[in-house]
């Protein structure tokens, strides 16, 4: 945050930093992404493993895995999405407040995985817009953490102030 370009001199400016609003807002958002774990199948176990003590996801501020969509920022779709479950995934996505991101964890959530059958939706991006795809069956917790870091980079590049002035998308099922 403090760079030489700003010419920060604490004796002159006191404890004041001048920067872009986008930078601050994105910095705050990306370091406290609260995931909504949509743990459906085996990938949920790796999600739990990444939240456990060995691959501590709490280092990134993401250990708050409350299963309430109203309180979360990022929906991690971990596992196979069947057509029967699609409605539920979409409804929960709509209940999340803006700004929200989706991580499709694993092969099944990204493209249907090895289940090319009548009951499996070939990728969750048919019903929700996905920001990061993680490959693997299941992806290692390190891969998931790498994906969360990429998500953090993506959040860092967002035009936050411009988005603040936009109205909510009218295509949401829940207002």
């Amino acid at each position: 945050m403090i760079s030489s370009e700003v010419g920060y001199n604490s004796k002159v400016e006191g404890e004041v930093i001048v920067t872009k609003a986008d930078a601050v807002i994105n910095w705050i958002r990306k370091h406290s992404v609260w995931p909504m774990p949509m743990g459906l199948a085996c990938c949920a176990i790796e999600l739990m493993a990444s939240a456990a003590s060995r691959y501590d996801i709490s280092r990134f501020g993401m250990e708050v895995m409350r299963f309430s969509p109203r309180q979360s920022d990022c929906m991690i779709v971990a596992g196979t999405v069947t057509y029967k479950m699609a409605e539920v995934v979409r409804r929960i996505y709509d209940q999340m407040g803006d700004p929200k991101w989706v991580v499709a964890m694993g092969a099944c959530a990204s493209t249907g995985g090895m289940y090319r059958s009548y009951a499996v939706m070939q990728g969750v991006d048919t019903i929700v817009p996905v920001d990061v795809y993680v490959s693997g069956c299941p992806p290692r917790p390190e891969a998931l953490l790498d994906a969360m870091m990429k998500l953090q980079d993506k959040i860092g590049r967002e035009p936050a102030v411009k988005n603040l002035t936009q109205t909510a998308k009218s295509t949401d099922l829940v207002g």
Partner: protein
Amino acid sequence: MIDDDFVRSLLNRFSFLALRHQTDCLTLACPADSVADFARYLRDEETFDLLVDLTAIDHGETADTRFSVVLHLYSLIHRAYLRVHVDCPDNDAPEVPSLSSIFPAANWHERETYDMFGIQFSGHPDLRRILMWDEYPYFPLRKEFPLAGIDVPLPAADVAEVTGADVDPAPMMGGPFVSPGSGRMSESEPRAKDESWTEETIKQS
């Protein structure tokens, strides 16, 4: 003990039974109308009180009896399994009496068999789909149903409207490659068994 005496006494007592084989466990064939009484006898008199599995087989559209329901029972005393094949009398509207009053475990197994094959179980308290959604119009495990599935609308109409999603047949290109094993060499190359979405066969809709 499941020995020859046991088998002989069973066959003598119930004239409608037929012995199919005894390769891995005793396998009997029982007609649909007597299966309830036979199951009750097995549970009460012969200690086969654990219903391990109840499922069905689709023998193909051209077979004489297309569907047969298969039960597996286990006896803790004999420490042995017993398999009963029940042929469904009607190929177009297969129906078999329900065993859920004798074995409560059969309740969900019969719902699943109905869901996958379309076999009706008469006397079942609540025969509805269990694995697919209630309005699904097909029976997936029948042999003529393609693995990739058939185009149907998504179960939730409002989600379908918003997202434009649909229950699409899964893309099978590059699918599991299995060689049929017989026929001419040029035709027995490994290819995806279900070709419901290739240039040669038209996508089912």
